[in-house]
């Protein structure tokens, strides 16, 4: 029987995997058995060790977080959005739930009874594969492969990997130990030991016919069931499970689970009637899943499309998240994230050049703003400028044209990667910010010598920059211009000082947080404008007035200031610490909600965190006083 609602639900399901593999009539039939659940924010659907439900779940709207408890801490495994399925355990296992499903925001969930869905799984291979993969991704359980039954009882959680992590290709031992079948067990064991491996492939005319692993020596030889003098083919496992080259982590894991083996033999065409190319062990899978910035950098360099770059950026988010969870110092995370983001931008420029042909003049692509300071943890917006060397007047138009095209291409690549376009248009693709070195020099001269005259909005982001791609000399020239102009330029510093102090204060008269009064972020605390920006602006101002070059990072700027200006070193050091604490709050908020983290939801902070945040805001007053003392701020106020 079909009714308006089951049609509506079926329409929704057919847009999503694995339901899109099923015909519409089946979906109607499934929809008719669905129960709809409304889950209030922070309510959980099931918890670790709850008895299995008789259904699995599809998110209709809202966000569900899947978490495990490890070391008494709640760790996020996965976020499920509209159309995502979760709670698949009842399909594959009999024991209780191994994770908690909790609504991150008010959610509507479709519960699909296992009993109705099972026949469709059995009939449809694609659906089965999808469920298996989803289950593997949602649990990441290496122990599950040991018992023959698909899933054992513990969740081996490994630090929050994205699903994509699973689909990277796998590196494995490409020179496995190959031995012939006549060799004695003792000699084989000797070879395995000498080669420091844990397995050997037995070959017959370069085709694999069997495999021996440590386990075989242990269970079949050490137990005395076979004497040492027997030939190796008596104890080998045969046939070997073979796979093709370039297998993904997910696939390899599935094959291991399916056959309950710990090693896979890689052959030329994936059958056991072709040449052996390597061996994949469970250990390789573990290694492949470790997040490794070095690997990411390599992947960036190899990438050909914006899509590939996006995958890398997604992985970076995972690294940042797990690093923050592990309490790795934020300065360290910042520098790793900064390097990777820089590499992404660089590669984006390279990809554009590959597309457009080589540039007609030398140029520099400078990242400005947060990336210029290497403080970009979250996917915030992109800011950049492009400076090209001076060319003769008749060539100027063509050259500018080329660079504008290049910039447009690059910014759109970066947008696809996830860096939103700058709302103020501070991007190299903007005519204004893509020009020759002479024009840029003029621009900086006019900004710095006559601030507030031509435009009130000289954006301070232009004074934090880092070269992502191009000619080092050009960057140096810009730096020189800025510092030449900065020397004894009272007017300019006063302007910046005013700008820095103009930001709204974080705490009100009663030492309560000043939260947003209206708009969609009502009741939240704007940590970016009220706390981080004043610190960043203050650092930039003081560094420039002290003629400190080459340090772009806010934290390091304060550290450096403490050294060159020892009289106020305490203020500077406090500001440096505050900056780290505040950025951490912002990063945590951003990761939790997939946002830029600008607005902190105060209701979600516990008392300790609130105090911590408040304490971090304290040094701002001292900084403010210091700036007021040092510069004459009256000229612009």
């Amino acid at each position: 029987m079909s009714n308006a609602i089951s049609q509506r639900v079926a329409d929704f399901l057919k847009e999503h995997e694995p339901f899109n593999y099923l015909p519409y009539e089946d979906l109607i039939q499934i929809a008719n058995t669905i129960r709809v659940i409304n889950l209030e924010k922070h309510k959980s659907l099931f918890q670790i060790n709850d008895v299995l439900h008789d259904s699995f779940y599809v998110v209709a709207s809202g966000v569900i977080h899947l978490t495990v408890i490890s070391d008494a801490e709640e760790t996020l495994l996965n976020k499920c959005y509209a159309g995502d399925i979760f709670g698949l355990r009842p399909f594959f296992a009999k024991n209780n739930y191994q994770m908690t499903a909790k609504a991150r925001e008010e959610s509507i969930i479709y519960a699909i009874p296992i009993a109705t869905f099972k026949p469709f799984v059995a009939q449809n291979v694609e659906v089965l594969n999808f469920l298996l993969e989803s289950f593997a991704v949602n649990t990441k359980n290496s122990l599950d492969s040991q018992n023959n039954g698909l899933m054992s009882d513990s969740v081996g959680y490994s630090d929050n990997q994205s699903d994509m992590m699973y689909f990277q290709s796998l590196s494995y031992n490409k020179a496995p130990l190959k031995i012939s079948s006549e060799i004695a067990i003792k000699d084989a064991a000797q070879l395995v030991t000498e080669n420091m491996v844990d397995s050997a492939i037995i070959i017959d005319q370069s085709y694999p016919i069997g495999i021996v692993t440590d386990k075989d020596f242990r269970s079949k030889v050490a137990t005395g069931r076979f004497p040492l003098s027997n030939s190796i083919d008596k104890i080998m496992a045969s046939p070997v499970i073979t796979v093709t080259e370039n297998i993904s982590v997910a696939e390899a894991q599935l094959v291991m689970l399916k056959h309950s083996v710990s090693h896979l033999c890689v052959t030329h065409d994936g059958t056991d009637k072709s040449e052996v190319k390597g061996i994949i062990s469970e250990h390789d899978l573990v290694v492949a899943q470790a997040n490794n910035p070095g690997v990411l950098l390599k992947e960036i360099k190899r990438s050909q499309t914006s899509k590939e770059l996006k995958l890398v950026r997604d992985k970076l988010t995972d690294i940042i998240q797990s690093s923050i969870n592990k309490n790795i110092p934020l300065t360290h995370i910042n520098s790793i994230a900064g390097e990777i983001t820089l590499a992404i931008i660089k590669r984006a420029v390279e990809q554009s050049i590959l597309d457009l042909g080589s540039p007609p003049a030398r140029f520099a692509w400078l990242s400005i703003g947060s990336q210029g300071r290497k403080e970009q943890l979250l996917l915030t917006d992109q800011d950049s400028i492009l400076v090209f060397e001076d060319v003769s007047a008749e060539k100027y138009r063509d050259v500018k044209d080329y660079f504008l095209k290049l910039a447009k291409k690059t910014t759109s690549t970066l947008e696809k990667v996830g860096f939103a376009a700058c709302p103020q248009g501070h991007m190299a693709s903007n005519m204004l910010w893509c020009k020759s070195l002479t024009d840029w020099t003029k621009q900086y001269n006019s900004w710095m010598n006559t601030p507030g005259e031509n435009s009130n909005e000289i954006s301070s982001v232009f004074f934090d920059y880092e070269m992502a791609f191009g000619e080092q000399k050009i960057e140096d020239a810009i730096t020189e211009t800025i510092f030449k102009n900065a020397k004894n330029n009272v007017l300019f510093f006063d302007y910046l000082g005013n700008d820095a102090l103009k930001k709204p204060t974080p705490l009100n008269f009663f030492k309560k947080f000043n939260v947003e009064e209206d708009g969609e972020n009502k009741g939240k605390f704007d940590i970016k404008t009220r706390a981080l920006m004043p610190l960043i602006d203050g650092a930039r101002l003081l560094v420039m007035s002290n003629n400190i070059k080459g340090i772009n990072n806010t934290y390091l700027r304060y550290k450096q200031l403490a050294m060159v200006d020892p009289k106020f070193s305490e203020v500077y050091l406090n500001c440096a610490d505050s900056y780290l604490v505040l950025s951490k709050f912002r990063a945590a908020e951003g990761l939790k909600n997939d946002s830029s983290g600008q607005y902190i939801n105060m209701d979600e902070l516990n008392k300790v965190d609130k105090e911590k945040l408040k304490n971090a805001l304290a040094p701002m007053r001292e900084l403010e006083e210091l700036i007021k003392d040092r510069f004459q701020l009256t000229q612009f106020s």
Partner: protein
Amino acid sequence: MLDWLKNISKEHPEFWKNYTSKFEKKSNRYVSLSLETTGLNPNKDVILSFGAIAVVNDTILIGDTFEIAIPQYKYLHDNGITNDFLLESAQPKLAEPAAIEAFINYLGNATLVGHRIHFDVEMINEALEKLACGRLKNEALDIEIMYKKLHDIGDKNFSLDELANLFKIPKTERISTTDDAFTIALLFLKLKSRLKLQ
């Protein structure tokens, strides 16, 4: 004054006796109901379609729905209104007596949930009277009243669309009484958990 005596002597139809007997037990089932009528006067206007969906244990059962359109030939003819739109709708069609009987059987002793449900109850009571039945015995909950209670609002009224917007319930292109009933059911679940009703 002695009207009730008349009722006693009158023989009720079989389905009605069956219905009243269900009330010996208490139900944990809710039925979210939406009616389409020709107007707002229970004495003159008639029901054009029913859409209902059941809620049990805080979950909406998609399979447990009720949708019937009533092509009110006589009423529409008398008032010179065309009924093409009803005939073309995808909902199954029944004449009024059969539709009412089917609905009463579907409803049973469940608690009714609706938006301005008392009007709906009045409409059904009018139709029941024509079939020589008594009045509905079901308890009824109104989501508009629940919402006002939640926020302690006295004098403002909220349409179903307004409520759906307030709770960010996605809109659909299809507009039938069944869709409305589904929206009401979702609103009911959200309000119920917020009001901590058991």
